[in-house]
């Protein structure tokens, strides 16, 4: 019996997963769950949304073992998985290596394959397929941010030693484009030879993967991998933590080194190749992006950069490093708002930064930048706290922008 799949009807009680779906669920490692609840306690959207990792694991466990006393798992309960930001706190805090986040991603995949997807997410995915970015803007406009900067395109070079992978948000969002411009100014200032893919760049697919659209992820990844071979790229740096995570961990790039901009720039500081000329006499707190810190254990490099900028007083937020408070923008959340959500995690983060006396909240990811800046505006704190990407801070210290 094939269950009904209505795009708009999300409250069907479904008692059955089909064979393939059960296979996906059974492949997950949640038999060791002892229901301690640490995953739920550490989840940034628990209590703000319906998502409860612990209950989800419990109910799935019953399902998969097919006990007759299964509590019914409804589509609306399963649909709570769209609220996940993929911060991976639940994975970090689990004492039993259960990985609730993987269960959430598995349910997303099941819903995606059923076609049961919130319309805004559906549109973002379709746009990525058709236009190479979630915004549905022509790929021809992907490098418009670089118009006045004379940046080299990979297609015009015989080979590329260093590629700056910009990413969709940074390429198309007006505010985030400043990250790209700052990065270009820094690289030119240091005299580094680099190129961008420009119109040939395609979405990295990090959000696509997080949303469970595995087929689409393969499609977008293949496009970028093809380009890397075509243009003979040796090394890739990116200012986006999401792009970094996916290029480094999920792509099969042969012999290509992938670094986040903070790693790259931190290395250059070690070699004394960056000269900070202007003082930035500010109290700066660094917000660890989940995809840089939690997922990839990169904590020191951004701090080293900030400490080396003259005048900067580096503050350490209470919830930092592995314990960083997710901004709430990952996992496809940029394209999905939960109805009735009281507040977004970003607002807590802003309050934390302000209470600490920070004047600048530095980030290393455009998702964090946009989410946190939005929160600042919503809370009316534009005069109290500035949200900047690390490369924007560096740029100011170099005397540019």
């Amino acid at each position, binding site marked *: 019996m094939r269950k009904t799949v209505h795009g708009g009807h999300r409250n069907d009680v479904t008692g059955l997963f089909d064979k393939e779906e059960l296979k996906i669920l059974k492949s997950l490692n949640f038999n060791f769950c002892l229901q301690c609840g640490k995953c739920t306690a550490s989840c940034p959207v628990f209590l703000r949304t319906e998502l409860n990792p612990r209950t989800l694991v419990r109910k799935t466990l019953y399902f998969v073992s097919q006990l007759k006393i299964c509590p019914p798992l409804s589509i609306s309960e399963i649909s709570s998985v769209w609220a996940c930001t993929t911060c991976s706190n639940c994975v970090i805090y689990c004492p039993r290596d259960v990985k609730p986040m993987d269960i959430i991603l598995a349910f997303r995949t099941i819903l995606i394959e059923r076609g049961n997807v919130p*319309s*805004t997410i559906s549109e973002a995915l379709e746009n990525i397929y058709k236009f190479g970015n979630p915004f549905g*803007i022509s790929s021809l406009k992907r490098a418009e941010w670089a118009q006045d900067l004379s940046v080299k395109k990979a297609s015009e070079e015989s080979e590329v030693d260093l590629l700056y992978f910009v990413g969709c948000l940074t390429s198309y*969002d*007006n*505010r985030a484009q400043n990250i790209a411009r700052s990065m270009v100014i820094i690289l030119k200032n240091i005299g580094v030879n680099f190129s961008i893919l420009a119109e040939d760049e395609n979405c990295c697919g990090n959000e696509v993967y997080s949303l469970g659209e595995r087929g689409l992820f393969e499609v977008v990844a293949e496009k970028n991998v093809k380009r890397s071979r075509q243009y003979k790229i040796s090394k890739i740096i990116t200012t986006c933590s999401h792009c970094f995570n996916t290029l480094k961990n999920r792509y099969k790039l042969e012999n290509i080194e992938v670094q986040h901009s903070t790693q790259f720039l931190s290395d250059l500081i070690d070699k004394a190749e960056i000269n900070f000329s202007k003082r930035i006499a500010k109290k700066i707190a660094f917000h660890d992006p989940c995809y840089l810190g939690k997922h990839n254990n990169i904590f020191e490099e951004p701090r080293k950069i900030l400490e080396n900028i003259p005048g900067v007083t580096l503050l350490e937020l209470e919830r930092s490093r592995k314990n960083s408070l997710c901004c709430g923008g990952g996992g496809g959340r940029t*394209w*999905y*708002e939960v*109805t009735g959500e009281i507040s977004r995690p970003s607002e807590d983060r802003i309050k934390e930064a302000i209470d600490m006396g920070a004047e600048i909240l530095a980030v290393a990811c455009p998702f964090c930048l946009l989410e946190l800046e939005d929160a600042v*505006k919503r809370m*009316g704190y*534009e*005069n109290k706290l500035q949200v900047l990407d690390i490369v924007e801070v560096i740029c100011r210290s170099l005397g540019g922008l």
Partner: protein
Amino acid sequence: MKEILVLAEHRLGKLKDVTFEVLTKGRKLAQENNARLTAVVIGYDIDPLGEELAYYADEVLIYDDYKVKEFHSEYFRQVLSHIILDRKPEVILIPHTSYGLELAPSLAIELNIPIITDVLEISFENGRFVVIREYFGGKLKAKVTLRESPRYIATVRVGVSKSEKNESKGQVTKMQNLDLMDIPYKRVIGLIKPPPEAVDISSAGIIVAVGRGIGDAKNLPLIEELSKVIGGVIACSRPVVDMKWLPKERLVGLSGKVVKPKLYLAIGISGQFYHVYGMMNSELIIAINKDPNAPIFGVADYGIVEDLFKVVPQLISKIYGKMYGEENK
């Protein structure tokens, strides 16, 4: 060139404005080509409509029959078919409306008459029937001809012409009953009037309208804030209603309301005709859209090519500041 026939559209005992617009267009075509202009009105108990139409045509044909007391494509087609075969007009103009599109294409097939829809301009050039119409949602226009034929059918876009009454009254002719063939396989059960609404956007002086560009219902609070601070009422274009982000009563356009406020702020609206029709006579139109090629800029007085999520918050603070003398909230 002998006759141009125009089908009148009416509902609930009143002629629709589009009827007069199409008759005015027909009048121009008739004058240019030395032809008679004949209006056709089909319905039940419609003598007064016929009288009214006589000021817009040389002749009015009234077909009055209980069987056509409501619009019904099959009955109306039988009547028109009879008239066309009898009088052999060169051009048949039908309003480009829901009724019109339910009728015109099948009339064309039945009588083998070339048809073109949603036209803006009509003329004869060197004996060829030529029209102007839009393509790609209004991004391009084209000059289009129909294959040479003794007769042509065109559906005319609503709102593209003013209506001009004639000074003299034309002749009114009541047609004989045609003993229309019954149509048991298609039945018009009834009309559903729009429900009474909480908000009547058509009486608002300031309208803040959103389109697909708003992206999601979650983003509406931003627009609500703008609307509040500027003293306006929220309206929207079709995609917003299709996605159920706002109720139908907020819809501006062909299938919604026609508004003429002092200020119409079109935010994230592409400006396709079916929306523009509903707001193009607003006193001041300011449009915000990321797409520099959006058709809305063809109807706006001022345009901003920018991400609405960047402009609107700044606009809110500026207006707030202006009204309350502070720089920030």
